[in-house]
């Protein structure tokens, strides 16, 4: 015989609009073992919580059912209420009558009936619940940051400054990310290098940061507080412990590869550093471009290297690092616009993408900062086309958020560096950051022409050979504009960095339909993920600008700190356990678990479960033919009782 209290939340009108909440509370009071049932406008508020706490004491409750929103939202809130009232926190049951009832119907009859059914099931189940005890584990102090763009750099520095040891993993041979490719940043037009390179240097110098460039994560084991991450150091063919960064080798190298750093606009040596301010200042050999690797002879670099640092035999190496938390900050790529044939990217030399243009502006770029076309001439008219592949159901539905602003920045730089007429073809101007509207005003007054209409087609000019014509509707006048230009700049959709699918798999992150990593909650847990102890920052979560990225990086660092600051942490008690005497050793559980929690104990001949990895999803219990696995908090009896309660309706 238990004593159950039922608390029905209105959630303002979110629930009350399609569920008769007071009728539901009255109904609850008629159910077995229910001694008190109430409804209230916002159960999660302080008065709501106090009401539950008081009723626990007053009515000597030993079970509490909160009929409200998803347990993802407030289960922890109400567990705390029970804990503070002296009850075991697993004795609270959340009945989701918002996401699963009120929000999925417009019919109050239907809504009320379904709410009664699920509540009935919950009461049946609650009667069979028992207290559970959480396990406590040790927590590793260190943090890994994956990706060393501005987000990863910022998060690493913040953490390192608190005294935590940070492993910063970067897949390229230098840190800095896309920000290091830019010349200026909007809306202040700060020199990108001036604000970024000191941070890059600080990373290099920091005693608490272990910088691992040209590395990729290859395996992740463990769980929050105790991750074992294996990192692959890709072969650089240069022993960096011997190399002093004199770069004599790069002068002699005859091998030519495409400069990734300059977005393929120019070639670079096979042995190279990506750009003069690269961190670390140590070269690597591009195997595909190296004459020795291709033809079997050359080794000029080896001859000029006084430190004997060249090592053509070098292999990839693997290191396993133990950390308590991980921040993933893997950034973005621009979508490939070549398949959008109407814009002629890759076909007409006058069509550029945004990152290529960033390099044209940059004094360390292929033109030394001059804006010239591929034939060396200065453009007389330039069209910037917004939303190429973004806000487009045929490609990516999302808004890439920064294109409006960087397109304005481009306009300014074009005006500064050329005498060209500059046009923007836009759908909407989105300038919703601090100082952004003011920046937009400034650019408008620099006599940039704005055509409200998406660029529809880029074609070769029939009248002027070598020139291009941009076609679009100026929706403001309703006229069809044919604009002759020399240069077209595409602002393509920002998409997750290549390889982020693999990162998602390794760290068990979910992704949205465009491949961006999913946050735990879009508003209240934007930097956490469904994988405990793994945090995200920057554009890998969704397109954003540098200020927002830096803010997220700081936030993710603080989130990671909340874990690694602790010596020990409590694990969720709702895990599965194996009854060894019933186990038939079929290992179904080992095969189905997405978290790798069950393992087969060869010695004992039975499956066992690593509780620290177990998320309590119950998959193993459901596939166990011998019913040897018990999912705590979701035992067969409990689940069957709940179904029985549901089926009564």
């Amino acid at each position, binding site marked *: 015989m238990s004593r159950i209290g039922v608390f029905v939340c209105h959630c303002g009108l979110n629930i009350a609009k399609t569920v008769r909440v007071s009728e539901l509370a009255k109904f609850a009071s008629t159910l077995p073992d229910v001694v008190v049932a109430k409804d209230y406008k916002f159960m999660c508020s302080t008065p709501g919580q106090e009401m539950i706490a008081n009723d626990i004491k007053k009515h000597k409750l030993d079970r509490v059912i909160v009929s409200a929103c998803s347990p993802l939202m407030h289960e922890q809130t109400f567990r705390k209420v029970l804990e503070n009232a002296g009850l075991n926190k697993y004795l609270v049951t959340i009945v989701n009558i918002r996401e699963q009832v009120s929000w999925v119907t417009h019919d109050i009859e239907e809504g009320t009936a379904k709410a009664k059914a699920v509540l009935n099931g919950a009461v049946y189940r609650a009667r069979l619940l028992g207290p559970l005890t959480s396990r406590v584990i040790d927590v590793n102090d260190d943090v890994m940051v994956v990706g060393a763009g501005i987000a990863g750099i910022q998060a690493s520095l913040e953490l390192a400054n608190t005294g935590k040891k940070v492993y910063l993993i970067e897949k390229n041979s230098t840190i800095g990310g896309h920000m290091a490719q830019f010349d200026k940043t909007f809306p202040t037009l700060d020199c990108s290098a001036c604000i970024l390179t000191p941070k890059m240097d600080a990373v290099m110098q920091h005693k608490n940061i272990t910088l691992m460039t040209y590395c990729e994560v290859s395996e992740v084991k463990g769980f929050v507080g105790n991750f074992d991450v294996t990192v692959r150091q890709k072969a650089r063919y240069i022993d960096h412990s011997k190399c002093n960064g004199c770069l004599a080798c790069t002068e002699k190298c005859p091998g030519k590869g495409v400069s990734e750093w300059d977005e393929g606009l120019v070639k670079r040596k096979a042995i190279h550093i990506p750009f003069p301010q690269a961190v670390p200042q140590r070269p690597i050999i591009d195997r595909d471009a190296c004459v020795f690797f291709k033809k079997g002879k050359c080794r000029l670099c080896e001859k000029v290297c006084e430190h004997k640092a060249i090592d053509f035999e070098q292999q990839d190496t693997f290191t396993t690092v133990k950390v308590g938390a991980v921040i993933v900050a893997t950034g973005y790529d621009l979508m490939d616009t070549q398949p959008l044939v109407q814009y002629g990217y890759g076909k007409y030399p006058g069509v550029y993408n945004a990152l290529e243009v960033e390099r044209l502006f940059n004094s360390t770029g292929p033109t030394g900062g001059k804006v010239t076309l591929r034939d060396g001439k200065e453009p007389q008219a330039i069209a910037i086309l917004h939303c190429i592949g973004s806000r487009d159901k045929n490609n990516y539905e999302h808004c890439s958020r920064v294109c409006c602003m960087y397109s304005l920045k481009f306009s300014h730089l074009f005006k500064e560096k050329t005498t060209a007429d500059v046009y923007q073809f836009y759908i909407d101007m989105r300038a919703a950051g601090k100082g952004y509207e003011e920046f937009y*005003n400034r650019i408008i007054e620099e*006599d940039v022409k704005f055509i409200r209409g998406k660029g529809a087609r880029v074609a070769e000019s029939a009248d002027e050979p070598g020139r291009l014509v941009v076609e679009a509707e100026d929706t403001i006048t309703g006229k069809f*504009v*044919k604009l002759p230009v020399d240069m077209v700049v595409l602002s393509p959709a920002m998409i997750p960095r290549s390889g982020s699918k693999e990162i998602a798999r390794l760290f068990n992150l979910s992704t949205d339909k465009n491949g961006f990593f999913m946050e735990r909650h879009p508003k209240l847990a934007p930097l956490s993920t469904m994988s405990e102890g793994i945090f995200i920052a920057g554009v890998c979560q969704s397109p954003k600008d540098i200020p927002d990225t830096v803010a997220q990086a700081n936030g993710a660092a603080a989130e990671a700190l909340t874990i690694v600051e602790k010596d020990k942490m409590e694990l969720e008690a709702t895990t599965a356990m194996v009854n060894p005497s019933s186990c038939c050793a079929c290992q179904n559980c080992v095969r189905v678990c997405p978290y790798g929690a069950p393992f087969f104990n060869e010695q004992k001949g039975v499956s066992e479960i690593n509780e620290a990895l177990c998320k309590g999803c119950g998959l193993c219990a459901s596939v166990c033919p011998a019913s040897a696995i018990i999912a705590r908090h979701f035992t067969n009896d409990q689940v069957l009782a709940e179904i029985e309660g549901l089926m009564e309706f």
Partner: protein
Amino acid sequence: MSQTVTPYLEMSRAIVEAGGEALKKCYQCGTCTGTCPWTPITHFNIRKLVRFGQLGLDGIEDYMWGCSTCKFCVDRCPRGVELIDVVTAIRNVYSGGGMLPQSLRAFVGSMSARGNPWSGEQSKRNDWAKDKYPLYTQDTKYLFWTCCTVCYDPRNIKLAKAAAEVLNLAGLNWGMPSVDVNCCGESVRKVGDLELFERLKQNNLNYFNTHKVDKIITVSPHCLATFKKEYGENYDVLHLSQLIDKLIKEKKLSPKKNFGGLKVTYHDPCYLGRHSGVYDAPRDILKAIPGIDFVEMGRNREQSMCCGGGGGGLWMEKLKGERLSDLRIEEAMATGATVLATSCPYCITMFEDSTRTLNVDEQIKIKDVTELFLESLGVNMEELMASAADLNFTCKMD
């Protein structure tokens, strides 16, 4: 007109160089068109005019003559675009290409040849005064700037005389300019002839300088705004309504005639209200006159309607149904007023035309505030007009 266009930025730049710098700021939100009094009744679209100007598109001539420079859009523009400057610059650039409408040619021609818009001979500029009123000399305190319209337009001569009488009754040391001056140039500037405007302005400035003018009273708000904004800052310029208001408040002149419940409403001239910020002075004069039952129209002060006479509108033909002055007369009559008072000769002309074409000239009279005020001092306007030449009128100060 072809649907396909190619931006022609040379034209856009020419507009900017002609003073339409503000063209660049516009982001085409349409607040101007939404505010513009012409939008509901004509095809004129101020936003489109700016848009065509921004890109130098053909077809701009369809929109360029619709604006009466009432400044309503300028006051509401979220980007601070000086739309009147843009309109003026566009007219300047395009009328240079022979696009001046037929109806404005006589006006501009008269301005150029005679220095006034009414084809009056320059030597007859002061004939209205019949030598009754003093000329300005270096020893005079106030220059009473007689607008061309009050000098030559038969209806508005009444206003000139009323003004002169009031100045006399106030015992002020004043004089009017000699016939050497010419139009202040406001309207010719707004129709885009910036070169002619400069010529007219220089001529007037020469007069001001040689006669050491520093205090100017205007009867037309168009002259007022032009002197204040375009003639430099060496002059203390007042509209007559401001002066009268001051005289009443300082008890130098006191209205005494009781109008016995005459219902009067007041129309804010765009150039006195929005352009110059004078809203209270004319109202305070009306309220000081005994027996005037003052009523406001729905749209008043900052939100006042335009009569349609600014920006060259006075000289342009408008079709019935496309006249703002007609709408304003209807609005005034809806208040029950039998007198529509205002304080601008252009407004008077526009409204009197409308009362005649609407056939309501017996039901509502158009008067300048000055005229009502003079009557309240006991002067009969009709007598003044009839016998101005030989009337040896001496009014006593109260």
